[in-house]
C-alpha cells in the first residue's frame, strides 16, 4: 500500500485532500476538536491565538462565497493572516501556470493553501509540489472531493443523531457531478453508518456507484422510507436542461424534497443541504425553512470544523 500523502510518518494530518483513506478515529478526533471550537464561537471574543503569525492563502480558482468566507472566518478566528485570491480573475488569465502561482505565494511566506479548483486532483497536485512546512486544504476539486464539507456534515449528524452506527442516511440528487456526495459517502461509510442510500435519476448516477457501498434508489419515495438523515445535493444550473434532465420543473416533481415526501422519513429525521439552495428545484421552501432543516447550523459548524482542520494541519 502506498502511504497516504495526507498523513505524516506518525499518522498526523499534514494535508486535507480527501476523506477517502482517513480512519474513523482520525475523523472523530477532527470532530472532537471542532466541538471545542464551537464553544469559542459562542464567546464574546471569538478568537484564539493558535495560528498567530501564520499566513493562509485562500486560492480560489472557481467561484465560491460560502466556502471561501467560512474558511476566511475560521482562519481569522485562529489569528492567522488571511489573503484571499480570486485567481480566475488574475494571474491565470495572464498565462501563469498553477505551480508558478503557488511558488510565488510560497515565496511570500505562505504557510497554508486552501484550494478550490475546477480540475479534479488540483489540491493533490499542489500538495505534492509544496515545501514540507506548507499545508494544503482541498476546498473542492472538480467532481472529486470536498472534504471539509463532508466533515462538517458529519459534525452536524453527530450533533443531532449521536451514534452513526444506528443510522439510515439518504443522499439525494446529482450524485454524478457532486464532489460533496463523494466526500459524504466516504465519511458515512468510514464512520460505520450501516445503510447509506443514494436517490437520483439514472442519468445523474455515476457508473458503479454501488461499489462505494451504497444502496441505489431511483424512486425518491421508496428511498426516503424510514431514513434518519436526508442529505440534499444542489442541482447545478448547467445540468437543468440538456442531456441529463428534461427540465427543472420535472426534476422537482420527482426528486425535489417536499413536506409530503419528507413524511416518509422518520418523524425526527433531519434535512441537510450544502448550499447554495435552489428553492423549488431540489428542495421546497416549506422544507428548507421547516423545523427539520439543519441547513443553517451546518454553516455555523462549518467554521468550527475548518478551524479544527487548519489548527491540526498547522500543528502537524
Amino acid at each position, binding site marked *: 500500500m502506498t502511504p497516504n500523502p495526507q498523513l505524516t510518518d506518525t499518522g*498526523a494530518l499534514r494535508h486535507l485532500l480527501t476523506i477517502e483513506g482517513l480512519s474513523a478515529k482520525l475523523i472523530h*478526533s477532527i470532530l*472532537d*476538536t471542532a*466541538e*471545542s471550537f*464551537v*464553544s*469559542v464561537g459562542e*464567546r*464574546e*471574543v471569538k*478568537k*484564539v*491565538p*493558535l495560528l498567530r503569525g501564520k499566513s493562509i492563502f485562500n486560492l480560489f480558482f472557481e467561484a465560491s462565497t460560502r466556502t471561501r468566507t467560512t474558511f476566511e472566518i475560521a482562519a481569522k478566528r485562529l489569528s492567522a493572516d488571511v489573503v484571499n485570491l480570486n485567481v480566475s480573475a488574475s494571474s491565470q488569465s495572464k498565462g501563469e501556470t498553477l505551480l508558478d502561482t503557488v511558488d510565488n505565494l510560497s515565496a511570500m511566506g505562505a504557510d497554508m493553501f486552501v484550494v478550490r479548483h475546477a480540475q479534479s486532483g488540483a489540491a493533490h497536485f499542489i500538495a505534492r509540489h509544496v515545501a514540507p512546512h506548507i499545508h494544503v486544504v482541498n476546498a473542492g476539486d472538480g467532481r472529486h472531493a470536498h472534504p471539509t464539507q463532508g466533515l462538517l456534515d458529519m459534525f452536524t449528524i453527530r450533533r443531532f443523531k449521536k451514534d452513526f452506527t444506528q443510522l439510515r442516511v439518504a443522499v439525494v440528487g446529482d450524485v454524478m457531478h457532486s464532489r460533496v456526495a463523494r466526500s459524504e459517502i466516504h465519511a458515512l461509510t468510514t464512520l460505520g453508518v450501516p445503510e447509506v442510500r443514494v436517490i437520483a435519476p439514472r442519468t445523474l448516477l455515476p457508473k458503479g456507484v454501488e461499489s462505494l457501498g451504497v444502496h441505489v434508489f431511483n424512486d425518491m419515495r421508496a428511498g426516503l422510507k424510514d431514513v434518519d438523515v436526508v442529505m440534499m445535493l444542489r442541482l447545478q444550473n448547467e445540468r437543468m436542461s440538456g442531456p441529463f434532465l428534461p427540465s427543472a420543473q420535472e426534476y422537482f416533481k420527482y426528486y425535489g424534497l417536499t413536506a409530503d415526501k419528507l413524511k416518509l422519513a422518520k418523524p425526527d429525521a433531519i434535512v441537510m443541504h450544502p448550499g447554495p439552495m435552489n428553492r423549488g428545484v431540489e428542495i421546497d421552501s416549506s422544507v428548507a425553512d421547516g423545523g427539520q432543516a439543519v441547513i443553517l447550523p451546518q454553516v455555523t459548524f462549518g467554521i468550527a470544523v475548518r478551524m479544527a482542520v487548519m*489548527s*491540526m494541519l*498547522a*500543528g*502537524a
Partner: protein
Amino acid sequence: MKLPDPEQLTQQLVQAIKPRLRANTVLVGIHTGGAWVAEKVQQQLGGKLPLGTLDISFYRDDFSRIGLHPQVTPSAIAFEIEDAHVILIDDVLHTGRTIRAAMNELYDYGRPAAIELAVLIDRGGRELPIAADMVGARLDLTENQNIQLTLAPNNKLTLSLHER
C-alpha cells in the same frame, strides 16, 4: 518521597479559600486535574458557587513545537467573567506557562475584577513571574520528576511521582 494525600490538600485549599470569598466569586478549574479539584472545592463550599472549566490547548505557547493536543475538550464557562472575582484552580503549579495561557483565555471571556490562583501542589521551577495565592503543599522536585494527579473511579484523587 512520601506524597501528601490530595483529598486532604483539597480540604486545606477549601479552608484557605473560605475567607477570600466575595459576592462575585466564581471558580474556574483548569482541565483536567484542576477541573477535578475545582469540582471538589465547589462541593465542599456548599455547591452554590458558579463553576467553570478551561482547556488551555488553544492558548499554549508550545503549539508551533508540538502541535495541537490530541484531545482538546471545550472550555465551559457558563457565567459572566466580566467583573467577576475568579479563583483559578489547578492541580500542580510548575513553570507557570499553563497559568499564563489560562489568564489569556479568561480575558477572551471578559475583564475579571480579580484573579487569584489556588493550587494543590507548588513544585517550584517557575519560568514566568507567577505565584499562587493559595497552596495545598509545596514540594521540592527535580526537573526529571513529574507529579501526576489521577481521579479513581470511586471519585478519589491520588498523586503519583514519575521519573523521566
